[in-house]
């Protein structure tokens, strides 16, 4: 045979299936590779690409800063500035030697023991060491290079005006969310929303490319209030002095623009410092002029008289018998502070006669008064957007008993907030139209709602001007050089179902200058101590000081210059 000359091994006869077996193995091997490639390329491609991107791509959070709150002239009342918070992962800090912990504690200004306690919290992955420190201090801490210590950018809210603006602006919590005042009411506008961007970072950690369009952070919008910071400061100073002098429990004061309904100042006592709220109580943070109700007392009388004038029941010179200062009515006694005898309707306001106003009131139907009070905004919240606005207590007129109606004529049996009272007085400064109040700067003209005729508004204003003149209840409300008008109020505090014998609320609401009203000033002093507790003694001087200073500050020309030294300019050149 041909094969016999070869080596014996080669003479082996291979069986045919073996070569085919190897071929199949190789083919199936390639097939497996192809399947795997298909699986990776087609089925798992998204997952793998994401994993790859995670090696060099990063998502950066872009924090949004909270909008600032400004007064009507753009002065900042609340500003956010960046601060750093230092946090740790306790497991990583555990190995750090004690000496270094001490340096860390020193850099943070914390006792070393506190830092050690925080590190010992093994159950947590994230523990704040100290929040809201200055960026400079944080940089020092980070320069120590301790593993497991990180910093986080946050914003801290500062209130430059401090206690002067505390009640209006309110404050935010540590998470930068509004908790009181405008910060709470306008939280949605102020807050803004954080954004993010996806980027590629190089080996050195620099951002080299944006991967996809970023979601830009939306900074909070600034909020411009109607408050004038200078008037606010003035109001705060005067109210604080008055509350201290009267040893009162508290007090409120509001200045309202008589022509636009903008609230120019809103202050309360006691107050607090919004930048340091460690021992602040609810009694201090409450914006009393908005949330607290009180019986307004005689400050309601102008409305009783206005309704009667409007209905044609009386004229300013109609005579009313008030007798010896005491009157029996439906089993109750209505009394005046002085015996006034028979006086005119105008004198009822001037002398603040309870009997007189009750007698005028009883000539009108409950429906007339009920609708008037409703139209004046009593029983409905002022809608300034401030949180916790009180609606006031006004019983429906259908359920009034005669004695109720009589006492309401001089402001008892009805509860209002100081802001509601100030709002109601806009009918006298705005030709009989009620203006809506606002805490936001009003650029458009406010639309009033007619409540009384403009003639009545003028008549009642004249009566209220008499009240601040000699012979009235509040001569101390006068402002040199200006004509002002206003009404005092003194009410016993309602307590436990009755009236407290020697606890009072003294108030004064007035406006000026009478010829072209600019400001409405409403003052309320809670529980003045001592012999003088009448609105004319406690409230009127505050009104006078605030109104006078406000008019001078805003360069309002005097409309009663008689008491002042007036000089015409001598030469044109100095004009």
């Amino acid at each position, binding site marked *: 045979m041909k094969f016999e000359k070869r080596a014996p091994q080669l003479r082996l006869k291979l069986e045919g299936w073996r070569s085919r077996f190897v071929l199949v193995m190789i083919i199936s091997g390639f097939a497996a590779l192809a399947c795997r490639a298909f699986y990776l390329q087609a089925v798992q491609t998204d997952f793998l690409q994401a994993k790859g991107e995670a090696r060099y791509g990063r998502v950066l959070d872009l924090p949004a800063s909270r909008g600032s709150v400004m007064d009507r002239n753009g002065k900042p009342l609340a500003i956010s500035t960046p601060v750093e918070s230092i946090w740790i992962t306790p497991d990583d800090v555990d190995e750090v030697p004690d000496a270094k912990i001490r340096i860390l504690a020193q850099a943070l200004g914390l006792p070393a023991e506190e830092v050690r306690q925080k590190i010992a919290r093994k159950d947590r992955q994230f523990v704040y060491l100290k929040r809201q420190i200055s960026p400079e201090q944080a940089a020092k801490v980070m320069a120590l290079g301790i593993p497991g210590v990180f910093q986080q950018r946050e914003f801290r809210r500062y209130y430059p005006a401090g206690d002067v603006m505390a009640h209006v602006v309110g404050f935010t919590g540590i998470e930068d969310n509004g908790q009181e005042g405008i910060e709470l009411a306008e939280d949605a506008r102020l807050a803004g929303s954080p954004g993010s961007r996806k980027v590629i970072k*190089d080996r050195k950690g620099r951002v080299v490319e944006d991967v996809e369009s970023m979601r830009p952070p939306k900074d909070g919008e600034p909020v411009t209030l109607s408050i004038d910071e200078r008037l606010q400061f003035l109001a705060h100073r005067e109210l604080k002095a008055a509350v201290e002098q009267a040893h009162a429990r508290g007090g409120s004061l509001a200045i309202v623009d008589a022509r636009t309904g903008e609230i120019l100042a809103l202050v309360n006592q006691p107050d607090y410092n919004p930048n340091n709220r460690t021992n602040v109580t609810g009694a201090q943070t409450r914006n009393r002029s908005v949330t607290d109700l009180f019986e307004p007392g005689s400050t309601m009388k102008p409305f009783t008289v206005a309704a009667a004038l409007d209905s044609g029941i009386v004229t300013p010179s109609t005579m009313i018998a008030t007798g010896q200062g005491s009157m029996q009515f439906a089993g109750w006694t209505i009394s005046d502070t002085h015996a006034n005898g028979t006086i005119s309707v105008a004198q009822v306001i001037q002398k603040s006669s309870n009997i007189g106003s009750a007698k005028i009131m009883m000539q009108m139907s409950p429906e007339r008064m009920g609708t008037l009070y409703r139209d004046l905004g009593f029983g409905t919240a002022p809608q300034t957007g401030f949180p916790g606005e009180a609606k006031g207590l006004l019983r429906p007129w259908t359920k009034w008993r005669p004695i109720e109606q009589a006492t309401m004529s001089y402001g008892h049996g009805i509860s209002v907030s100081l802001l509601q009272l100030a709002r109601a007085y806009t009918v006298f400064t705005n030709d009989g139209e009620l203006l809506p109040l606002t805490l936001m700067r009003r650029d458009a003209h406010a639309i009033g709602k007619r409540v009384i005729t403009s003639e009545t508004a003028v008549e009642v204003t004249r009566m209220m001007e008499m009240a601040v003149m000699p012979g009235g209840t509040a001569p101390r409300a006068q402002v040199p050089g200006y004509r002002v008008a206003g009404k005092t109020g003194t009410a016993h505090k309602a307590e436990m179902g009755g009236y407290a014998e020697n606890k009072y609320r003294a108030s004064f609401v007035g406006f000026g200058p009478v010829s072209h009203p600019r400001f409405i000033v409403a003052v309320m002093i809670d529980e003045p101590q001592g012999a003088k507790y009448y609105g004319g003694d406690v409230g009127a001087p505050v009104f006078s000081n605030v109104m006078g200073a406000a008019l001078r500050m805003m360069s309002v020309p*005097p409309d009663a210059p008689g008491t002042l030294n007036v000089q015409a300019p001598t030469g044109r050149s100095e004009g």
Partner: protein
Amino acid sequence: MARVNVLLLALVMLCAVGVITSQHRARKVFVELEAEQAAAKKLDEEFTQLRLEQSTWATNKRVEALASKNLGMRLPEPETTMIVTLDNRAGGAPR
């Protein structure tokens, strides 16, 4: 045919290098932009801090305290105030 291919290959190589350099330049410029934006942000933050500082120094309370204590200023009394009225006939707005 072969010459055209060589030419095209050279063109492709040239373009590839071009892409690489422009990408590199783009990244360098981008890093610069980032740095400038960071600087702008920092200035912005500094501005708010300065605004805060300014308003803290300029609070009415502080100004009033300084005026009355250090400078001995006080509000004028109505008796010592002189109101100067503008003579309209004289014409001309006050300057």
